[in-house]
């Protein structure tokens, strides 16, 4: 028989995936900001681990109209950070918003991975890092969702 869980313990159990998501989104934010700065200043960005950054970041997919995709990524990661912090501190409305945003980012990540693999035929390490962050964020938010449901049950 398990010991009864106090409300504060239960809150802490729910909060940790959100706190982890907030920390992780900062990593995504730093990555996206790096790409943004490189794009806006016209710097020649080179991959250090794999080759393909020039092909991917110089392709037509690196921009949405005049806006670098990295700027949208930075905005998305900052919003994830804000919502995750709010969710961790018990703002209930932030949870569904966060789940929706992360789901959209996850789908966008799948699309960008498809483009790199099958259209551009090159991979960029900074884009792969961002993909890894978004996939992990999706897992964390799914865990948070499940814990939340268990607590309600």
């Amino acid at each position: 028989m398990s010991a009864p869980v106090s409300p504060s313990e239960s809150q802490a159990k729910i909060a940790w995936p959100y706190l982890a998501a907030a920390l992780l989104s900062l990593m995504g934010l730093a990555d996206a900001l790096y790409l943004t700065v490189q794009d806006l200043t016209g710097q020649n960005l080179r991959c250090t681990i794999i080759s393909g950054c020039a092909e991917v970041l110089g392709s037509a997919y690196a921009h949405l109209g005049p806006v670098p995709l990295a700027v949208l990524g930075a905005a998305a990661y900052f919003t994830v950070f804000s919502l995750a912090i709010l969710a961790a501190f018990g703002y209930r409305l932030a949870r569904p918003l966060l789940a929706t945003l992360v789901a959209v980012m996850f789908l966008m990540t799948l699309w960008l991975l498809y483009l790199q693999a099958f259209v551009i035929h090159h991979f960029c390490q900074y884009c792969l890092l961002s993909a890894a962050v978004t996939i992990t964020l999706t897992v964390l938010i799914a865990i948070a969702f499940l814990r939340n449901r268990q607590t309600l049950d």
Partner: protein
Amino acid sequence: MKRLVPLVIIVVVLIATVGTTWIWLRSSRQTANENANANSANPGSNAPGAEPPHVRGNASAPVTLEEFADFQCPSCGAYYPELKKIENEFGDNLRVIFRERPLVPPHEHALIAAQAAEAAGLQNRFWEMHDLLYENQATWSVGSDLVPIFVDYAKKIGLNPDQFMKDLNGETVAARVFQDGKRAHAYGIVSTPTFLVNGKEAKGDSWKSEGLREMIKQAQRGAGK
């Protein structure tokens, strides 16, 4: 009071993010400007671009026609003979700069074609490969494995095929295509061919060959003032 803690954290991170980005942008711009001043071949423009660019014609011509093109784009192929005529007509009064703008997709072979031209450029035969690619566009565009075709072209124009193969997927070539792509983004160029006459984009009727001739003449008159 506890409810305010997350808001304070968000504001602090926002300020730190904006501040860091601002400092980062400033230092990167400074570095980019120093690099551009050190080896600029594009008068009057701070936009990025592969250095040195591919230039044909009189280096001190009063008019510079900068073309952003894609070797697989049918419009670029159709414009190619007309552009040659324009070059001949204006002679020493015109210099032409070529910039890579491979549109992948819809042109699945555009990138490798751009790389082939740039790899030829590393052996000082860019324009020869440029001409060959346009003249044979209908042939290679429908192929599946283009590397042997491009190696064949490389041999035809007297390139070292081993070096060509090495450069084709090399960092230098990739960086040049990337830099030209950056320049195209800076100018907001999304279609090919796009022409800049002394930095001014030829749009609408000016894009057509007669309009382009008129624009070059106007630029010539403007330069003569």
